[in-house]
């Protein structure tokens, strides 16, 4: 520590030269792209909206408390206004009467914004397969992360939150089929056990042609660069 302080003093005096100067710069300067830097900052300073729909909201609340401590990941400042928030957690069943309200809240949030669908109800309707509940909130708004469970424990929601952070940093988690190179083993794509069908092969081909996601670069501009 003392040595580094002396080196810094030497740099300021202009005494460092040659190899020593190179070493000093290498140790103290980090090079990155602005997009990555921005994504890193965004991922670690999320402001969730103070918003709950049903019983999952209890778990969401306890995620903020000291025991689970969402502040470790820089998202402890829950905002009471959608204008100040950039993450919405759909915590609970979404009734068709509530759906326009949620959609308006989402529309009022400023870009960039992310949504976590928490629990079985908001992801698929859950046990409420009836006339009053939206069967999956992704029917009326874009959703980034689905957290399964009924309700998910706060740890599960934290795990989903970490996955969202990875996604914001531009390095999203792959599904297990991608990680284990198991494209084509989907149940719907299997004609008979063990043999990938033509559909499965087509799906694998589509996947291999996907462009890797780049933060800050929309697909339209990426296509423009190719032209």
């Amino acid at each position, binding site marked *: 520590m003392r040595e580094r302080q002396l080196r810094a003093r030497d740099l300021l005096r202009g005494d460092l030269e040659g190899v020593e100067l190179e070493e000093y710069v290498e140790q103290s300067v980090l090079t990155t792209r602005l997009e990555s830097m921005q994504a890193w900052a965004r991922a670690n300073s999320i402001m969730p909206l103070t918003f709950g729909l049903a019983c999952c909201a209890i778990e969401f609340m306890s995620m903020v408390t000291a025991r689970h401590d969402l502040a470790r990941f820089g998202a402890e400042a829950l905002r009471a206004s959608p204008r100040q928030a950039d993450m919405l957690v759909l915590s609970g069943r979404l009734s*068709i*009467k509530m759906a326009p309200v949620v959609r308006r809240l989402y529309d009022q949030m400023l870009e960039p914004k992310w949504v976590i669908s928490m629990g079985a109800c908001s992801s698929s*309707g859950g046990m*409420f*397969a*009836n*006339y*009053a*509940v939206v*069967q*999956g909130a992704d029917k009326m708004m874009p959703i980034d992360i689905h957290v399964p469970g009924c309700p998910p424990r706060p740890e599960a929601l934290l795990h989903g939150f970490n996955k969202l952070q990875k996604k914001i940093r531009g390095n999203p988690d792959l599904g297990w089929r991608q990680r284990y190179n198991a494209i084509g083993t989907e*149940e*719907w794509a299997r004609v008979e056990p063990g043999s990938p069908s033509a559909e499965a092969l087509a799906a694998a081909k589509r996947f291999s042609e996907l462009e890797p996601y780049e933060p800050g670069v929309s697909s339209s501009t990426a296509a423009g660069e190719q032209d």
Partner: protein
Amino acid sequence: MPDAPGLELIAQEINAAHDGTVIETAHERGTATLIVDSERVLEALRWLRDTPEHEYRFLASVHAADYLPGEPRFGVHYELLNMPRVERVSVKALLADPASPSPATSSASPAGVSGGGSNGVGTLVLPEIDSCVELFPTADYQEREAYDFFGIRFRGHPDLRRILMPEDYVGWPLRRDFPIGGEPVLFTHNEAETPHWYE
């Protein structure tokens, strides 16, 4: 709760005052029920509320039920309570479905309005009963709820519109023939029935 003879006495007294109001009495499972003519339910309720010695002044609940395939199809239940004696009596009015295809009622309903049968979706011909808001103001919201979920129109209600479902909702969701909603869950065993669902 009045015992069985007491209930019979109440029924006879109501019929003596308003002939043909009480059709039947039922006394089972700890509930004394007067089954009344749906056109004269207000007379029965007013008598029960105002007659000395009875004075069922508190309306604990108004709710509807759908007895499909029973006939008549709908029931409107009034639960009355005498607070000092803690005695309850229940009044039940049965309503036929005017949109049902049975010949006796279809001749009474306006022709050509009941498009699409009686499945509760888009049915314009609704069963009707008198509103008891003037007797019991608490019935306001409860009758709106019965209207919301069963499509029973309460004549004379000051503000009959949906109370829980969205205002633009179509249909009467707690009717027994209302489609249950939701989506079929896809499992391995039934995915053959929905080919190409992933597209």
